[in-house]
């Protein structure tokens, strides 16, 4: 059962991810991104696309150094908005795939045309 502390954890991860401070990396699953933290923890954020838009599930997981899941937050949590968790996934994806730097590079190329 998710607690208020879990929500605070989610909000902190969201804030730090938006600020680009969490080293998200792509994995073998194109819809899953992972980040090690402080040499002790691992974060993962994933998107599972269901039959429809409303069935799409986003899940943020925190694991300890023994790979045990400590907590997991999904978009079905009553105190976490779908918009926020989708934003977390999207921000993590952009960081992991270095999207902003690549777009800057494309913009540079476009300016030369």
């Amino acid at each position: 059962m998710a607690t208020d502390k879990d929500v605070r954890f989610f909000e902190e991860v969201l804030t730090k991810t938006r600020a680009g401070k969490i080293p998200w990396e792509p994995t073998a699953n194109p819809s899953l991104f992972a980040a090690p933290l402080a040499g002790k923890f691992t974060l993962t954020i994933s998107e599972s696309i269901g039959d429809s838009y409303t069935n799409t599930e986003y899940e943020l997981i925190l694991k300890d150094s023994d790979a045990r899941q400590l907590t997991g937050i999904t978009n079905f949590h009553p105190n976490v908005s779908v918009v926020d968790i989708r934003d977390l996934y999207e921000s993590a994806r952009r960081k992991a795939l270095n999207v902003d730097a690549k777009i800057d590079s494309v913009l540079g190329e476009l300016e030369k045309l």
Partner: protein
Amino acid sequence: MLDYLTHNWGNLASVAGLVFSFLAFLFSKRASTSARQARDHTLRQTFGEEMNSATKTAREIVTHVTIDRADMALLRVGELMDRASYYIARWDNRLSERSKNNLLAAREQLTSIHDVLTKGAISDLAPRDKRSLAQSCQRVSAIFSEEYGTAVKGAEIEEQHGN
């Protein structure tokens, strides 16, 4: 002179005792420092050997995935996942935060590789999924290779300081 020695033998013996005690302390300190350096060097070498072995296994995974041998790749991935967990626990007190993060990242990559490989044949994967799988395998190999390099460098620096 003999008279002086006869009257002060106790004081002289005390001074000599003090000098010998100081020398013994000095030598034992040096011996303890050398023993610690030797132990650190051996541990670093052991870690280096383990990272070298992990790099070889990671390279095998890259090869098996490249030639669509999911069964062989899965065996090696399972083995390396176990070893990564062992390395994280075994070297927890001796590694930098960067190295610990690297090992955690490698284990997470291996977990995701394992999940993808258990879902079906590599040849059945969509091109995007196949590319992600290959890049993830390559990332694991790069991580262990980096850690091997760091361990070798550390051992060399220790050797230079020791000489």
